């Protein structure tokens, strides 16, 4: 069978208990603001360290990237010369030295061809396709 206390004392006791719980809750709520303060101090230090390291990483990355770009530009960039520039080097003394170990062949000349006469011919006939 269900037992239901119906006397007043029991009822009052019940109200007291409720009040006590409410007070506890209030105390807990009152202590809460300390947490964010502590957390804030800790976080500020941590983020400061983090941001410094991120900046240093970025710097390192930037310098590495720049270095790589410079190296890439050296290796990837095409070495191109105009026809006039190449023709200009034809008359330099280095170009007249006979290469070593040329095969013994009728197409090999004993002396270098003079490009001056040839160059004049080329200029003269440059647009003459007949």
């Amino acid at each position, binding site marked *: 069978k269900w037992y239901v206390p119906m006397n007043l004392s029991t009822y009052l006791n019940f109200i007291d208990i409720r009040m006590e719980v409410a007070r506890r809750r209030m105390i807990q709520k009152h202590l809460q603001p300390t947490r964010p303060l502590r957390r804030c101090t800790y976080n500020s230090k941590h983020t400061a360290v983090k941001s410094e390291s991120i900046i240093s990483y970025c710097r390192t990355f930037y310098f590495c990237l720049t270095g790589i770009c410079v190296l890439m530009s050296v290796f990837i960039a*095409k*070495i*191109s*010369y*105009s*026809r006039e*520039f*190449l*023709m200009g*080097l*034809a008359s*330099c003394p*280095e*170009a*007249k*030295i*006979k*290469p070593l*170990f*040329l*095969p013994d*062949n*009728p*197409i*090999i*000349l004993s*002396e*270098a*061809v003079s*490009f001056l006469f040839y160059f004049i*011919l*080329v200029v003269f*006939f*440059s*647009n003459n*396709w*007949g």
Partner: protein
Amino acid sequence: MRYAFNESLKDDDSGDHDQDQSSPKDSETIKIEDDEKEQNTTKKKMVVPGAGEHPLQYNYTFWYSRRTPGRPASTQSYEQNIKQIGSFASVEQFWRFYSHMIRPGDLTGHSDFHLFKEGIKPMWEDDANKMGGKWIIRLRKGLASRCWENLILAMLGEQFMVGEEICGAVVSVRFQEDIISIWNKTASDQGTTARIRDTLRRVLNLPPNTIMEYKTHTDSIKYVCLLSLLFSLHLLL
């Protein structure tokens, strides 16, 4: 019949058409192996630009080949005929070779000059060439030297602007005409071939009505195979 066959051989283009697709004889094989060894040892010795010289984007090798026109192509190996002259890595080194070689216009008979990137043989079967093709320009006699020089200067000076597509250039001296051609790696790349054609027109200062022909190496191989077959049949009959 024989005359017609020989004529058809002569009329083909760019000096590489007489590559023999049949296997060489045993005595020839030994010689070829020796040649390959020689070429391999040459390959290992990579040329470098000298101090103060102007480096080129790639190292190049000059080759020369000559075939007796009267003799049928099947008795000679193309690889046996082709001789390596030398490799260079700078502008100065190039002129050293070039100024000590006779001009294509002064060549006699069925001769070819090849200038290819170092490591690429001027053969269809080379890995760099097998998927490629070439632009061919037929020239009347007397123009080969100038056109050849303009062509190779454009190639060495990287005027084609097609990345690593260019393999090399050939000038072929024939009986009635001379042929110059430029080989590239990818025949199916129409953008690249079009750019090569346009640059070729510009650097050679070709008139607008000049006929330029593009030929894939696979087509060239098929053509030679067909000729070899016809020649074999002709000998049998």
